[in-house]
């Protein structure tokens, strides 16, 4: 099995675009750093999403023009952002009340591993030399109503990221609802991984071979 390439399956942008289709109008959404951030670019016409960034802003807008950034208006990735009309600033305890209290509809995160029972590992390789850093990931997965992962189906080394059980340190137990990869959209169900949809040009066996646990066909 050779490492996957961008020539097969969806690109990062296409993954983000695919996920964006599934977010209803008016949703309160928190997008993680990396591929998740791309989702905001692909929200279908006519829908308004309200973006939460855990450092204290609801109604986050796009990045400002080059050179127009305000060091006191940043997102959780510490990048310059803007505030849309209808925005609100608040302190960190209030911000995480929104998260922990179940007020945010959807969180989109990257992943190192997702297990068939919905466990997520995305904050640490557990290597002895690594500098541990967790940020808001554990709060987000524990509190947000729906948690979607967007990720390459396999690591750069070709190892499955969708696994029977996580080997990396966990971020949360049974917290993931759905995974969007370059190869497929997959739900986490009581029975385990269940195919929602294959990416164009990809067949079921190709995905199953690259998935570390049984994949149920779509019903």
């Amino acid at each position, binding site marked *: 099995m050779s490492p996957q390439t961008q020539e097969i399956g969806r690109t990062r942008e296409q993954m983000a675009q695919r996920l964006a289709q599934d977010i209803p109008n*008016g949703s309160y959404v928190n997008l993680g750093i990396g591929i998740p951030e791309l989702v905001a670019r692909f929200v279908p016409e006519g829908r*308004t999403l*309200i973006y939460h960034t855990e450092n204290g802003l*609801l109604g986050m807008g796009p990045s400002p023009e080059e050179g127009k950034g305000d060091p006191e208006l940043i997102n959780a990735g510490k990048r310059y952002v803007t505030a849309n009309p*209808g925005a*609100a*600033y608040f302190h960190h305890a209030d911000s995480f009340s929104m998260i922990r*209290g179940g*007020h945010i509809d959807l969180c989109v995160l990257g992943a190192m591993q997702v297990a068939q029972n919905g466990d997520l590992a995305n904050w640490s390789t557990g290597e002895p030399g690594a500098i541990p850093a967790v940020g808001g990931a554990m709060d987000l997965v524990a509190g947000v109503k729906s948690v979607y992962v967007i990720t390459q189906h396999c690591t750069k080394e070709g190892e499955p990221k969708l696994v029977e059980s996580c080997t990396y340190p966990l971020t949360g137990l049974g917290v993931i609802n759905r995974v969007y990869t370059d190869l497929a959209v997959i739900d986490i169900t009581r029975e385990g991984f269940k195919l929602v949809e294959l990416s164009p040009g990809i067949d079921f066996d190709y995905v199953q071979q690259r998935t570390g646990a049984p994949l149920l066909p779509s019903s």
Partner: protein
Amino acid sequence: MINKQVSTPAEAVADVFDGATVMVGGFGEAGSPIELIHALIDQGARRLTVVSNNCGSGEVGLAALLKAERVAKVICSFPRTANSTVFPDLYRSGKIELELTPQGTLAERIRAGGAGIPAFFTPAAVGTPLAEGKETREFDGKTYVMERGLKADFALIKGRTADLHGNVVYNKTARNFGPIMAMAAKVAVVQAESVVEPGEIDPEVVVSPGIFVNRVVEVAHPAHESELVAAGVCYP
């Protein structure tokens, strides 16, 4: 496009169901959402559990809802009022249940409910009848009582200005329980003296961010409880 505005108080409370838990904002008359409460009386829901600091005065607003026997239980810190006999009569005749909670514990329980905190420890009420039957525990040599977070199906709240996204600012001490009740309720309904476009409230001064607020309704000239009581009004 997001628009949380509804046209009337009646529409704003139309889906309150029998047996629902309803948080009602206000401390005394300040912040009491009288028009929403009156709409709830008209709507007819029964066997409600009401979470509110007080139980109203006269026979308007919250006192009128109680008088109409729509409320099975109140969770409250101070149900007595100088000029109301409604709660005392119902309580003495066994027609209403009371869960008496210290005011700060009530506020913190509501805030905890909204913040996803199922339980916390407080020093208030330790050693008093209001801690009886509750778990206590020592931290650093001092005793605390464990209290549970409180959630609700609905919250009825009075603001000053709201925007279409549900951002709210309040007026003076009428703010009181509004912001935390908005957090703790599945459906938070805010009556405001004016409803404006998103962007008209400075994001630095928003008190209740729109994520906590589900419906806003404009009540341009809200009644004040004391004025209605002084005028001898009985609702309905």
